[in-house]
């Protein structure tokens, strides 16, 4: 493992968003991570293997509608089920986690991934995540997306 895990996570997430949702993520200016939205979706997943830790993603609900439409190849106006929105973010995180652990440690080690946990959060929780030093911000279709990585343990 020679690369900075945070960079690997950011690159992997960008590739997954392109490959699954056909949406491109850019690096934002700091002020672009501020939003007037009041409802957000937050997903976390844990992984255990040669490196163990947790990945998290948070987006405004409106962006989750765009992501779901992108993944399903449908019109955002036709996206109605809130359950699908949570499902999409959890699955994007799940795929990011699987691809991240391989990018970080190669294709031999086996990692155990948890099932993603997804919940709605309010603006104060969003602000706390946004201001955390480990959080990486992206701009996706003009909306902010937050990602973070916590490494608990590294074997060897």
């Amino acid at each position: 493992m020679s690369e900075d895990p945070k960079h690997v996570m950011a690159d992997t997430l960008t590739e997954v968003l392109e490959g699954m949702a056909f949406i491109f993520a850019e690096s934002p200016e700091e002020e672009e991570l501020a939003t007037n939205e009041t409802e957000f979706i937050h997903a976390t997943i844990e992984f255990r293997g040669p490196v163990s830790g947790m990945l998290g993603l948070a987006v405004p609900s409106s962006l989750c509608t765009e992501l779901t439409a992108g993944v399903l190849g449908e019109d955002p106006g036709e996206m109605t089920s809130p359950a699908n929105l949570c499902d999409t973010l959890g699955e994007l995180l799940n795929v990011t986690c699987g691809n991240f652990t391989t990018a970080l440690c190669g294709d031999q080690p086996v990692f155990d991934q948890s099932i993603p946990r997804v919940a709605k959060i309010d603006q104060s929780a969003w602000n706390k995540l946004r201001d955390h030093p480990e959080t990486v911000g992206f701009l996706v279709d003009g909306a902010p997306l937050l990602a973070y990585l916590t490494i608990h343990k590294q074997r060897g």
Partner: protein
Amino acid sequence: MAYNVLVVDDSRVIRAVIKKTLGLAEVPINELYEAQNGKEALSILREKHVDLVFSDIHMPEMSGVEMIEQMAADGVLKDIPVIVVSSEGSQTRMGELMEIGARAYVRKPFTPELIRDVVKNTMEKANE
């Protein structure tokens, strides 16, 4: 020949994506069944005629691994090919899954071309 396909994944979005991708890949489908976990899948497999299964690994109630193991131990279900669809990229894990009875492995994210090729190869081998 059109296939009866069972898609097993706890994510309804991924089930929809696989369904859509099979269409884009022009895989001929007769019936498409869906299950949220291995337990539901086994129940469908015992009731319906299924030619091919797409399955995730990590699911609540019963994982894809346990489902494949139970299928391999069942005289009727052991010949139904299972294609594992997962985000994991470990060759070791893929080898373990093939050993217990999976026929192929597709890594997410996937393309219609990949799905088309994997289905073609898997069904050709199953019909040998």
